[in-house]
């Protein structure tokens, strides 16, 4: 491919498709790179290979039927999506969920954050050729999935929350399992850090690769760990606290440079902070109801349904029609593993959402990928792409 530069030189470039089906792109993404030798001169990002029409599909069902769809957004941390969606709908209703439900949700969010970061970092390390770390992290992830199995029967797509509460209360022994996993996460992180932290090859491969400065990151609209890696101290858990995050002791991890190394280590240290939050939350877990006592969203107690006319009607309406949020528009977001995950919900007062728009954190990161890679080499595509953690399910929806 012959190209003329603005200076008037003619370059003979080779175009290479990285993706849509390529081992470096975890998911179906396409990056068309123009190479001069092995250096990337320019590139184009393309998305949409996993477009499933999420936002149109959800208009066909009731609010409760949207929940299983949200699992498929960021499938590495499905529970955060469940909780994010429920949080938005609850905001429309103006419902406050009970204390036990809040603490349970915090535990689930933080454990999901841990497994999401684990997957991101391990996949990134595999792209760098450090295959062994994969299993050190994946074994821990498996332990978390065992808890998920016990909690709701599903591993990947959990659908664990309900509007106004949870699917069910935690099983007996949940706290013990969670604390045991916390220790294993710390051990695995120590092991992987031992392998990579002072490894010259790892540092060479990740330092100064894919730098995104704080200004660029803000301009691209980045959120979450990638933004923090660029040196911007923004974390919704600190800045716009929800679910009582202001009462937990934890630090926001901020990088300095915004390169791949920073993004990997921001995630690794964030996992340690999440472990500390989980430990604090387990201490706060008190017995109590997990569903809001609100007739608009929660099913009445079984006993009342059998002996009380109003409860029977209530149950009937909720099961056959679904919840009816008041007409209006609402945006609510939380700090998901990947960044700010927001749901804009427009309700016309009916049982089906009129429109749901997801603010996916990946989208802005993918938009920045092509400029990020300019001047780097083909091998850096794999490492940089892993570090911004694009989940195609969330990107294309």
């Amino acid at each position: 491919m012959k190209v003329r530069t603005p200076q008037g030189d003619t370059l003979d470039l080779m175009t290479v498709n990285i993706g849509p089906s390529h081992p470096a792109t975890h998911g179906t993404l396409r990056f068309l790179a123009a190479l001069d030798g092995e250096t990337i001169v320019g590139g184009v990002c393309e998305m949409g290979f996993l477009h499933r029409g999420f936002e149109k599909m959800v208009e066909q069902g009731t609010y409760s039927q949207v929940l299983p769809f949200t699992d498929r957004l960021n499938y590495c941390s499905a529970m955060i999506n469940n909780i994010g969606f429920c949080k938005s709908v609850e905001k429309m209703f103006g419902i406050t969920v009970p204390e036990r439900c809040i603490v349970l949700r915090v535990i689930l969010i933080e454990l999901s954050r841990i497994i999401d970061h684990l997957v991101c970092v391990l996949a990134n390390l595999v792209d760098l050729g450090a295959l062994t770390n994969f299993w050190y992290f994946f074994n821990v992830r498996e332990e978390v999935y065992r808890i998920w199995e016990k909690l709701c029967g599903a591993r990947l797509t959990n659908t664990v929350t309900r509007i106004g509460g949870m699917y069910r209360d935690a099983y007996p022994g949940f706290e013990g399992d969670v604390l045991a996993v916390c220790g294993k996460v710390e051990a695995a992180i120590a092991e992987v850090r031992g392998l990579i932290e002072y490894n010259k090859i790892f540092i060479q491969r990740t330092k100064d690769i894919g730098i995104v400065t704080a200004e660029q990151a803000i301009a691209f609209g980045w959120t979450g760990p990638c933004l923090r890696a660029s040196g911007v101290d923004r974390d919704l858990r600190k800045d716009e606290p929800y679910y009582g995050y202001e009462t937990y002791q934890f630090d926001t991890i901020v990088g300095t440079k915004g390169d791949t190394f920073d993004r990997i280590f921001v995630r690794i240290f964030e996992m340690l902070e999440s472990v500390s939050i989980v430990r604090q939350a387990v201490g706060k877990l008190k017995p109590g109801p997990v569903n809001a006592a609100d007739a608009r969203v929660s099913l009445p107690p079984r006993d009342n349904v059998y002996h009380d006319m109003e409860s029977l009607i209530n149950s009937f309406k909720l099961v056959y029609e679904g919840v009816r949020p008041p007409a209006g528009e609402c945006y609510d977001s939380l700090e998901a593993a990947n960044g700010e995950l927001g749901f804009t919900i427009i309700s016309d007062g009916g049982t089906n959402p009129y429109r749901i728009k997801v603010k996916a954190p990946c989208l802005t990161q993918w938009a920045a990928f092509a400029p990020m890679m300019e001047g780097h080499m083909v091998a850096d595509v794999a490492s940089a792409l892993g570090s911004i953690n694009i989940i195609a399910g969330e990107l294309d929806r």
Partner: protein
Amino acid sequence: MLSTIIDWIAAHPYQVVGLVLPIVIPLALFQILPLLVLMERRGAAMIQDRAGPNRAYIPIPFLNVKVRGFGMIFNLTDAVKLLFKEHFTPPFVHKGYYRIAPAIPLITGLLTPALIPWFSPIVYQGGVLSGQTIDANSGILMLFAMASLSVYGVVLGSWASNSKYSLLGGMRASAMMISYEVSMGLSVIGMLMIVGSVSLTDVVEWQGQHTWGFVVQPVGFLLFLVSMFAECNRNPFDVAEGESELVAGFHTEFNGVKFMLYMSAEYLHMIVASVLIATVYFGGYQLLPIPGFGPEWVKAHVGQVLAIGLVGMALGLLGFVWVIKNRKAIHARSDSNPQDKAERAKEYGLYMAVFTLAGLGLLGAAGASWALINIERLGQGWIDFITAAVQFNIVIAKALLFCWLFVWVRWTIPRFRYDQIMDLGWKVLLNVALVNLLVTAVVAKLIG
């Protein structure tokens, strides 16, 4: 007619062995390939804290046991699968080169053993049987020439594939080969300078009279080791394959037997590289890194040396029986499927019986060798050949240690980027090799 041939063979045992060895040794090396693949898989599983290959099995009819061989059967299934796959040729390739290319690395890999001294030269009435099949004066230079020819297979294959990923892989392989050939050659020159000869037999003989190479040339050894990793395209230098960047690099478009040829060539080169490291820096067929235990001493005490080796192997096998016993206990504890559990128990019981018997048999053989193998009983000819076999096994044992190093490194550290490899090769290794050469030259001149 036949009797005359037999008579001639009986009268000229050394000449006959000299004729047969060039075929036997590469084939013997080829037999190490499955062992190496098993080592890679088991080693990876061990390092990565996972179960490893344990599914493929051969049912033994009458005993009703499924023999899994700790993943050994996978080599068989892999080979059968690859051999019987459709010979698919992509429509866009250059057909001629595409067919020739995979054979080149394997052929060069099979030629290099001819240049390695496997045992000390045997002097007999009317000639010398050298441990090197081709005892050329150019020695190690010819070996390097042979080994570096293998990159032509990679480059040709990548060019013939007519695919961009392959092209990038082949380009990386050729650039890397050129860069590391230089530092590899320079690193070994220090050793050759001390020895004063480029013949590998001389290098090994010198190590027997003085001490092993890595003691006098530690820097050279490290440089040579790193260069060998690069020559074999092994992690951290496996950018030519670079599976996360270039899909599969130069062999993206190859499948079936052609892919198998590339893979077996890679492992064969690993063995050859290990043998070369062992030969140049770890004494080759020499037994111990101290003078006085050279080939003559081994020849005089070959029965005892063999006995000690056999006892070592027997102890290894009996230790392995203990490992199997532990694994059996683990399976009995953790297998949830009762049928599975019964099968494993039976299978491991069989292994324990077989390995215990084999270990005891080896102990018996060791005793027999201690008592029976001596020059009075067997005569010069047999002692010569037994010594050669023992020396061959010494080389292989040393080489296997380095093979394990290859596996260990592969599963521990990440991969370099292509330009970083070039930097390391030209800016670091080359300079260190030159300084090492200079220091060696000065010291060698001063000491004499």
